[in-house]
């Protein structure tokens, strides 16, 4: 340690500060970090099919901000994205989309984890008994990621679906009890 005179220590500190600073700034700006933290990871094909003559697929992904989400995809593009069930007042809702080039709309949406049975009105209208004008049509409830539930299938035939973005859906658990968005609220 005798050889480390004061001037040498100063020189050494200066060199460390200058090159250490350059290394830190250069390291933080290094473009090799690009792509190391993708916003979407782990895509998994859940199901695919054809509706109205057009092929679609449902892919489950993990988004870094929203967690597990489902994409309805057509031809390499996302038509609809959903990460959780949605609802208004007493009713859960699912999306209605007409795929590009398709002749019939498709229903797509996430349902609560307890959902065992789901139905929509044949005309896409209200599903509450006192307001309903058409019969209920059962939907196939599918599972994803263990406890998640979702619906994807062609809308029942009829003119009532044109122009709709969402439709109410009646949801029941395995015991036949109706589920509503209000059930999720803390009491």
């Amino acid at each position, binding site marked *: 340690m005798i050889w480390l005179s004061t001037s040498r220590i100063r020189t050494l500190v200066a*060199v460390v500060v*200058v*090159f250490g600073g*350059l290394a830190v*700034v*250069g390291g933080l*700006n290094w*473009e*090799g*970090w*690009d*792509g*190391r933290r*993708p916003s*979407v*990871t*782990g*895509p*998994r*094909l*859940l199901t695919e099919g054809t509706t109205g003559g057009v092929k679609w*697929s449902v*892919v489950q*992904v993990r988004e870094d901000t929203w967690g597990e989400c489902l994409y309805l*995809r*057509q*031809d*390499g*593009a996302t038509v609809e994205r959903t990460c959780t069930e949605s609802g208004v007042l007493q009713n859960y809702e699912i999306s209605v989309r007409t795929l*590009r080039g398709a002749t019939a709309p498709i229903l797509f949406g996430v349902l609560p984890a307890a959902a065992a049975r789901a139905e929509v009105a044949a005309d896409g209208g209200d599903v509450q008994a006192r307001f309903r004008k058409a019969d209920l049509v059962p939907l196939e409830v599918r599972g994803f990621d263990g406890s998640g539930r979702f619906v994807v299938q062609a809308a029942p035939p009829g003119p009532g679906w044109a122009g709709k973005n969402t439709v109410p859906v009646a949801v029941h658990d395995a015991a036949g009890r109706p589920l509503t968005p209000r059930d999720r609220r803390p009491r």
Partner: protein
Amino acid sequence: MIAASRKALRRSLIVLLVLLAVSGWTYLAIGDRWKSNVAFFTLDEGDNYRLRVTGSFDVRCAKLERETFSDPYVNWREAGKDCVWPRVADGDGWLAGGRVEQVNSERLGRRLPEVILYGIVPAAATSIEIILDDGTPREAATIASGHDDYRVYAVYVPDVGDRVEVVSLRLHDEQGGDLVVY
């Protein structure tokens, strides 16, 4: 004699270190001017854009950059990037990515109704067919990225409006066949 040579060695070392520090600082400050690119767009009204390939090891990104004159310390600003498409589990292809960048004009102070479509694709894709919401199919050849597993593309599309969306993205291989994308 030994003392003189030591002194010369020390001086040379100091000069070398100073040169290293100055060149390192210079590179960090203005080095982005000379970074290599795979595509360059000189637009009539819009800013200049360039596409570069970044990333390291097995991960690569197609990074679109816009030339800017408003910031004295930044010459090229990142406009966006599209990184390697993940393979879809239980499927037979990739989760398609791709980006749309609305062209900006610093001179006019607004965004223009034209876009640059860009992205990174699997190496098997030699061309890409993109359909925007105007319904017109646009086919473009992909460009070598410098990495064996990936190619990139960048397409300038004028007069398409302010809110452009990709509604279809198909990859074609060398024989003209379709690659599966979800």
